[in-house]
């Protein structure tokens, strides 16, 4: 069974209420946006975390990607707000 590790950071993590989770891989053709939409349907915390997708950024296997990127063979997806380090 192929799986996908999802990691959450910053207020996305606080909204979802966990650091991350492992799900059944939704398929290589699915985009990050589409997966986010499915996650948002899970209920309260998820819906709140992903209410404004224009405020969400993503990395696939530790590389920043646009939200319309397909998951492909990626094993790790991270979802978070725009970064504010430095």
């Amino acid at each position: 069974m192929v799986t996908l590790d999802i990691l959450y950071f910053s207020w996305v993590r606080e909204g979802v209420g966990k650091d991350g989770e492992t799900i059944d891989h939704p398929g290589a053709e699915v985009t990050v946006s589409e997966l986010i939409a499915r996650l948002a349907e899970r209920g309260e915390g998820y819906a709140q975390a992903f209410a404004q997708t224009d405020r969400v950024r993503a990395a696939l296997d530790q590389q920043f990607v646009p939200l319309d990127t397909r998951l492909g063979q990626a094993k790790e997806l991270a979802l978070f707000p725009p970064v504010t380090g430095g």
Partner: protein
Amino acid sequence: MTDVHIAVGEADFDPAVQLARLEALGGGAVASFTGIVRGGDGLQAMQLDHYPAMTDAQIARIVDEAQGRWPLLGVVVIHRVGELRPGERIVFVGTASAHRAASLESCAFLIDWLKTSAPFWKKERFDDGRAEWVEARAEDDAARDRWG
């Protein structure tokens, strides 16, 4: 061969040690930038989170980009995580090169890119109990974009 030192962690660091490292590389120019937690507005502490599996690799990519643009003898990037109080250092960028323009420009480039392209997030906690994630700023994106 560029001498590269990247460190991400909770520990404080000594800018003097880093400057000495860069001064010893034989170049004529060393530039540095140190970012510090600013107090005021009742700020009690800042919490710096990051994406550990990605952070070092992403900083290394940014350093590679700088090396491709300027002839650098040395680069130091140190970024702290965890809880930091006003007056504490957050970040240090240092560069050494033969000439001043390369050291100054690459130092500014590196901090502009770290601000917008490294996976760190800041949360501010105030005296009155409020705690807020710092919002990304359009002017930081603009600062990065001026490097083309």
